[in-house]
């Protein structure tokens, strides 16, 4: 996957929808099984141990994803992947590819794009990462 795959559109997508690596993990979990309806507990259970995230943080991430038009929810608060447009779907595929082929670059990109490097300073003091 070449550097050009990290296009301006993809970076913009990351900046708006993916504030953290855990958010990326959550989205990719949903993306990989698009037919399944997930509960929050399902997601928290299946997220990789390294990217563990608190329930409230996960709620915030998912809310961001929903407002970006990436996931939908039903009446019982279960969630499912649904991209609002083909362009968005393409960005998520790029994300999945980047996650497989260039994970280190992807992680650095996500953190570099966060508005607040300052917040990273404070976040450094969390024992459990991301």
């Amino acid at each position, binding site marked *: 996957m070449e550097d050009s795959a990290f296009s301006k559109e993809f970076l913009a997508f990351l900046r708006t929808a993916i504030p953290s690596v855990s958010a990326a993990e959550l989205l990719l979990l949903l993306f990989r099984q698009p037919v399944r309806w997930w509960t929050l507990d399902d997601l928290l259970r299946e997220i990789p141990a390294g990217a563990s995230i608190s329930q*409230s943080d996960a709620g915030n991430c998912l809310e961001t994803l929903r407002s970006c038009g990436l996931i939908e929810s039903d009446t019982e608060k279960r969630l499912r992947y649904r991209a609002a447009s083909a362009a968005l779907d393409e960005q998520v595929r790029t994300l999945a590819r980047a996650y497989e082929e260039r994970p280190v670059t992807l992680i650095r990109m996500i953190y570099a794009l966060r508005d607040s490097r*300052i917040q990273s300073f*404070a976040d450094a003091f969390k024992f459990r990462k991301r």
Partner: protein
Amino acid sequence: MIEFLSGAVTLAYLIAAVFFLRFWRKTSDRLFLAFTIAFVLFATNQGLAHVLDIYSEPASFIYALRVIGFVLILAAIIDKNFFAGRRQPDKR
């Protein structure tokens, strides 16, 4: 030389504290408030230790300032890991 260094360190702590204060205002993260106060305490400790010509800290009450500073930092770290609930959403 000691005077120079002592003054420089005092000022450096103070300037860092001002930055931490700014970061706290920007992010509302309590950790920065703790660091602000802690660094002000370190600055005061350093300044007073020199001005009052106190060589051996433990013999004086001044070291309480440092202690409180470090306790604050520890408390902030513990607070962040065990008590902080929602994080503020990123301002975009």
